[in-house]
C-alpha cells in the first residue's frame, strides 16, 4: 500500500505571472505523479492555499486537479494550515470538502471539561487510522495539544497516522528561524507516521515514541526565502510512503520546478555606488534567459539611503534579457546613516510611538510637522491609515486607491501636488 504526503503548496502565493505558472505546474505535476503511481490516498497537512480564499484563477485550477484525483478514486486527507485556516469554515478548503474532493481529518468526539478527545477517520481502502489538528496562526493551536486526550489515541491499535501543521523544535536545523515551534512532546505518541506541514524543507526523523516524523517541505515556494533556497539547490517535492501494518519505506520524490540564478551582494561598510557597480557587473555575468533571478543584498551601508541602491534599473535590464522573473531581497539591507533603532513598549501603540520617537531625530526636514512630536504623531496616523484592511467585497484596485487617497490626506497632499 502506498500514500503520498504533500504540504505547504501555498497555491496563490506567487504574484509574478511566470512564478504563478510554475506554482500551478508543480502542483499539477505532484498530483499527476500521485495518480500515475496509484497511491491509495494523499495527505496534505496544511497550507494547501496561501490564504483561506485565494483568487478565482487559483481556485479554478485547484478544483480541476482535485476533481481528477477524486475521479481516480484517491481520497485526499487534509488539515488547515496557518495560512488557509478559517475559524468559521470560510476557506476554499471547506468548499473542496463540501463537494467531496477532500476530507478534513479533525474529528472531535468531545471538547468539554478542558479536554479534547479526537476520533480517527478510517481510510476505507487501506484501513489506515488518521487523525490530527489544524495549524493556527501564531501557534494558537498549541492549546489543542495541551488539552488533547492523548491516552485514547496512544492505546488505539492498527496503522495510525497523525496530521499536524506546525514547526517541531526538536527538528529545527537552522537557528534564527523565528516561526513558531512546539516541542515534539506535545504530539501524541505511538503513531506509525507523523505527517507534518509548516516546515518548508524535507525532513524525516524518528525519536523515542515518535517514529517517522516527516515534513516533505514545500514543492515550490511559500515564502520568498524558499526561492532563494531553490536557487542554491534545495530539493523540492513530496513524500511517498509504502506501508502494510507498519511503515516499509519513506522516500522523497523530487519535482523539478525551474532554473535559477542567484546574485548575492555583501553591502557591509560600503556605499551605494560601489554596490550598484558590483550589482551591474554580476548581472552582466549571468545568463538570465527563462530563469528566475534572485538578487540578495545584505549588510549595513556606511552612508546614504538603502533606496540609493538601484534595483529598478537592474530589474528592468534583466527582464529585457528575458529573465522569467526577478526577485529582489533587501530586507536585511540597512544603512548606518539611517538605521532604525528598535524600541519597546507595553502595547502596539506604545511600541509604535517609541520606535518613531527613537528614530525621528535622524530626519532633517524644514517642514516642522515632519519632525519632533508632530512628526511622530503624523507618522503614527499615516501608519494607521496604511494598516486599514480591505472592506468586504472591495476590489483590490479600489482598495489601493482608497488607501493612497487616505494616506495623502494625512500628509495634506493631493495626487497632483508632485
Amino acid at each position, binding site marked *: 500500500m502506498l500514500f503520498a504526503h504533500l504540504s505547504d503548496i501555498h497555491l496563490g502565493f506567487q504574484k509574478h505571472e511566470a512564478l504563478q505558472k510554475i506554482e500551478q505546474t508543480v502542483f499539477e505535476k505532484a498530483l499527476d505523479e500521485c495518480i500515475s503511481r496509484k497511491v491509495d490516498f494523499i495527505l496534505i497537512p496544511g497550507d494547501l492555499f496561501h490564504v483561506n480564499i485565494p483568487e478565482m484563477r487559483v481556485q479554478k485550477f485547484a478544483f480541476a486537479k482535485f476533481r481528477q484525483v477524486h475521479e481516480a478514486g484517491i481520497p485526499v486527507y487534509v488539515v*488547515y494550515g496557518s495560512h488557509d*485556516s*478559517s*475559524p*468559521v*469554515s470560510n476557506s476554499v478548503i471547506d468548499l473542496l470538502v463540501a463537494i467531496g474532493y477532500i476530507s478534513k481529518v*479533525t474529528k*472531535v468526539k468531545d*471538547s*468539554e*471539561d*478542558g479536554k*479534547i478527545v479526537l476520533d480517527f477517520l478510517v481510510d476505507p481502502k487501506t484501513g489506515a487510522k488518521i487523525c490530527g*489538528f*489544524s495549524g493556527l496562526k501564531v501557534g494558537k493551536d498549541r*492549546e*489543542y*495539544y*495541551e*488539552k488533547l486526550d*492523548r491516552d485514547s489515541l496512544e492505546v488505539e491499535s492498527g496503522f495510525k497516522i497523525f496530521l499536524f501543521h506546525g514547526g517541531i*523544535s*526538536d*527538528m*529545527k*536545523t*537552522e*537557528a*534564527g*528561524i523565528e516561526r513558531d*515551534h512546539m*516541542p*515534539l*512532546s*506535545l504530539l501524541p505518541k505511538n503513531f506509525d507516521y507523523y505527517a507534518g506541514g509548516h516546515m518548508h524543507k524535507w525532513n524525516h*526523523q524518528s*525519536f*523515542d*515514541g515518535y517514529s517517522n516524523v516527516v515534513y516533505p517541505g514545500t514543492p515550490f515556494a511559500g515564502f520568498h526565502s524558499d526561492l532563494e533556497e531553490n536557487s542554491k539547490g534545495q530539493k523540492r517535492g513530496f513524500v511517498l510512503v509504502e506501508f502494510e501494518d507498519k511503515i516499509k519505506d519513506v522516500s522523497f520524490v523530487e519535482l523539478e520546478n525551474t532554473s535559477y540564478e542567484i546574485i548575492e551582494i555583501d553591502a557591509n561598510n560600503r556605499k551605494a555606488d560601489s554596490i550598484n557597480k558590483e550589482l551591474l557587473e554580476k548581472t552582466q555575468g549571468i545568463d538570465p534567459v527563462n530563469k528566475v533571478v534572485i538578487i540578495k543584498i545584505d549588510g549595513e551601508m556606511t552612508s546614504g539611503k538603502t533606496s540609493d541602491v538601484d534595483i529598478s534599473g537592474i530589474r528592468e535590464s534583466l527582464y529585457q534579457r528575458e529573465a522569467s522573473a526577478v526577485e529582489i531581497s533587501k530586507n536585511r539591507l540597512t544603512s548606518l546613516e539611517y538605521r532604525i533603532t*528598535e524600541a*519597546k513598549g507595553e502595547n502596539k501603540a506604545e511600541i509604535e510611538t517609541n520606535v518613531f520617537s527613537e528614530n525621528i531625530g535622524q530626519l532633517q526636514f524644514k517642514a516642522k510637522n515632519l519632525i519632533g512630536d508632530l512628526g511622530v504623531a503624523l507618522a503614527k496616523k499615516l501608519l494607521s491609515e496604511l494598516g486599514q484592511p480591505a472592506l468586504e467585497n472591495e476590489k483590490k484596485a479600489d482598495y489601493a486607491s482608497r488607501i493612497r487617497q487616505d494616506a495623502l490626506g494625512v500628509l495634506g497632499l493631493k495626487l497632483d501636488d508632485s
Partner: protein
Amino acid sequence: MDEFSIAGQVVGGKFGDIIIRQKSGNDLEIGDLMVSEENGSFLILQVFSLEYGSQIQDRMQQMMSGVNLEQGSDAQFYEPEFVNYVLARIKPLARVYNENCEVKIPKSLPSFFNKLRLITKDDLKFLQKEKDSIFVGYIRSGSKVIKEAEVWLPAEDVFSHHVLIPATTGRGKSNLVKTILWHVLDSNKVGALVLDAHDEYFGRIGVGLKDHPRAKDNLVYYTPSNPPVGANRLTINLQSIRPEHFEGIVDFSDAQFQAIRTYHWKSKDGWLTTLMLTDPDSATDQIAASTMSVIQRKMRLILGLTKDEEGHLVSKHEVFDSATKGFTTVDDIVQDIEQGKVVILDTSRLGDEAELIVGNIIASKLFEKYKAYKAVGELARKPVVTVIIEEAPRVIGVDVLTRNNDNIYATIAKEGRKFKVGLMAITQLSSVIPRTILANMNTKIILGNEMKQEREAIIASASQDLSEDDRNIASLDKGEAIISSIFVPFAMPVKIPLFEDIVKEKGSKVRPEKTKVF
C-alpha cells in the same frame, strides 16, 4: 510603649554588645529582633547571646540547690523574678527614622535604661515591595515569623551582582531556589539558566515550577529522555561544542589541547566527530597515537560517546547527537533566556563534567551575546540573566581556578555584572571559593551550616558585619536564613516559606472549559 509589650531593658554593655535584662514572662531567643524607641527614630536590635543573671552569689545558689536535691525540700527564692533573670546580649542592626521610614546604619547606643520591646509588623513598614523585585521570605524574629513583613530584593541588581547560597544538605536550599524562581516566573524581567542536577525544580513528579500560572509562557524545560507533555528534548549536536568549552572544566594536557585545537581548525564544525572516529594511529599533523587515544578516552567518558556497529557516534545518555538532531538547541535556549524566561536543564543523567560543559556552551553563548548587546547599546533593553549552578566549587573553586584557565562561570563571576549576567552559586563549601569571587557575590542568602570553617568564610565575606552571628548561623533551622546583601539595609533574618504552600496558594488551577477546535 505599653507595659505589656516591654520585653527588656538596657542595663549595660557597649556598641555592638549591649546587655539587656529580660523582663520576666518573656522568652527571648537567639535572633530575636527588638526595638528601642528613641526620639524621632527607633533602633532595631538583634539578640545574639543569652545568659543568666542573678543578684545572689553563685555559692549561695549552689547551696540552695543542694538543699533541694539532697534533702528533698522545695526551697524557693523570695520574689524570684527580681533576683534571678536572663541577660540578653544584643547588637544594633538599623536605625529607622519615623518621619520618612529612612533606614540607616546605627552609629549610637540606645538610651541607657531604655525599655525594649519585640519587633512588630508596624516597625517594618520600610520593607516595601519595589517594582520588579523578587520575594525571598518573611522577616523572622528568632523563630517567630512576621508574615506581614515580606522581604523583596531588587531583581536586576541582585541577580547581576551574583548571589551565593551557602548551605549544607537538608537546610532547604532547593526550597529557597524554587521560591526565588517562582517569583522570577511572575514576569519576563529576569532570564535564568538552571542546571538542575537532581531534576527537582520543574516538578516532573509532584509539585514544581511547572505549576506556576505563567509556566506555559515563561518556563522552558529540557530533559534528555521521555520529556513530559510540552517539554523539550535536551539534545545538543556535537557541532555546538568548541574546544574552549572544555577549558577550566576538563583536565587536558597542553599536547592534548593542542591536538583538539588542530582538529577544530581542520574539520571546523564536525571536528569532534572526526576526532572521535579517527584511528589514533592515523591522526593528522603527527599527533601521537597515545595522545589521540587519551583524548578519545576522556571524551568518551565525559560525553558518554560510543561508536555503534555502523561506525556512527552515539551518546549513551542521548544528550549529544552527532547526526541530525540538536542543531538549534543552544540558540533556542539562549533566545528563551534573552526573552526573560526560566530555562531548566535536567542534567541528572549527565556526569559532573558533561553537565558543566552543557552549561558552559550555553552560558558562553549567552555571555558573548550580552557583551555584543552592550557594544551596540542594546543591553538596557535586555532582561538581567542569572546562571544557577549547584556545587559551585566545581567551577569556581580555588583548586579548579589555579589548575586550569578560567571557565565561563568564573568569567561571569568576575565581569558578568557589567553585562547584566550574574551567577547564582549554591554550595556547601564556601571556604574553597576564592575571596576575590566571594567578595563579588554581593548577596548571600545564608542557610544553616554546622561547619565552623564554612561559617567563618561566609562571615568574612558578608556585606554586613556578621562577626557575632556565628552561633546564629549554626542554629538556623530548615527554611531559616540570613540575607546579607548590599541591597538590604541590614542582615535580614528571614523565613523562607515552604514551596508546596506557595503552590497551594498561588499555583495554577485547571478550569474546565470547552475548546473550539476547527
